[in-house]
């Protein structure tokens, strides 16, 4: 079943605030082998001008992937997640994510296209603080593989 084209341009309600924890940043940094002290030691983060430890550049996906469930699991949009593979990913930063941030995600369907029997869904997630400060914009392109 093709994805519903009328969803292009649709924006979903903001997600519940996500509290960025110092230990979560440390855990994520450790998992990817990022040993820079600024990911682990608040003093090293502050030395770079941040209020606490700094998240590695791809850390927001831990937040946005959960946030995108409202879209991926929307029965009206009709994604068969068992056929989904990750196509593209992009982060455009206003500033790095730091421990102590309380972040809200707003998901928008930017594009739905169909090519070679596969469907391509591009989503944009605008991540900002609960105070309204923009932090990072995250684009994901999901490929829904056609049934061979």
């Amino acid at each position, binding site marked *: 079943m093709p994805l519903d084209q009328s969803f292009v341009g649709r924006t979903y309600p903001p997600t519940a605030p996500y509290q960025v924890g110092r230990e979560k940043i440390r855990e994520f940094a*450790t*998992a990817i*082998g990022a040993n820079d002290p600024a990911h682990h030691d608040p003093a090293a983060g502050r030395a770079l001008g941040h209020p606490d430890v700094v998240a*590695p550049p791809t850390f927001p996906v831990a937040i946005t992937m959960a946030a995108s469930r409202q879209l991926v699991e929307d029965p009206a949009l009709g994604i068969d997640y068992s056929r989904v593979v990750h196509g593209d990913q992009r*982060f455009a930063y206003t500033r*790095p994510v730091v421990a102590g941030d309380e972040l809200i995600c707003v998901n928008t369907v930017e594009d739905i296209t169909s090519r070679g029997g596969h469907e391509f869904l591009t989503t944009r997630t605008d991540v900002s603080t609960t105070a309204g400060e923009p932090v990072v914009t995250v684009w994901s*392109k999901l490929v829904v593989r056609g049934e061979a």
Partner: protein
Amino acid sequence: MELPAQTFRVTRADLVRYAGASGDFNPIHWSDRFATKVGLPGVIAHGMFTMALVGRAVTAWAGSPDAVVDFGVRFTRPVVVPDDNVGTEIVVTAVVRETTEEGLTRLDVTATCLGEKVLSQARATVRTAG
């Protein structure tokens, strides 16, 4: 200008750790049974794990963990990770495409596994110190 290559070893243990840290528990990243059932050659690395390693390379080149302003990739080929102690290896290289007057450096990045490119259109913009 070409930047010095950086090499990252990836084992099954790394994928398990990344699954836990990122919350991505898709079984194609830990179960051979599941991965082969959906037509993959075996367990593959999370695309976002590969991207995270490339992010490490980019911040290392930039000289600061908070230097990344823009970072995007396209996942073109799966990174198969065998169930042994050796795992596989991802090699990351980059060329400097442009340095702007605002102190930004744009990199074109290449990531390969077993000699094959696993990403395309991999680009990063970093704030350069100084």
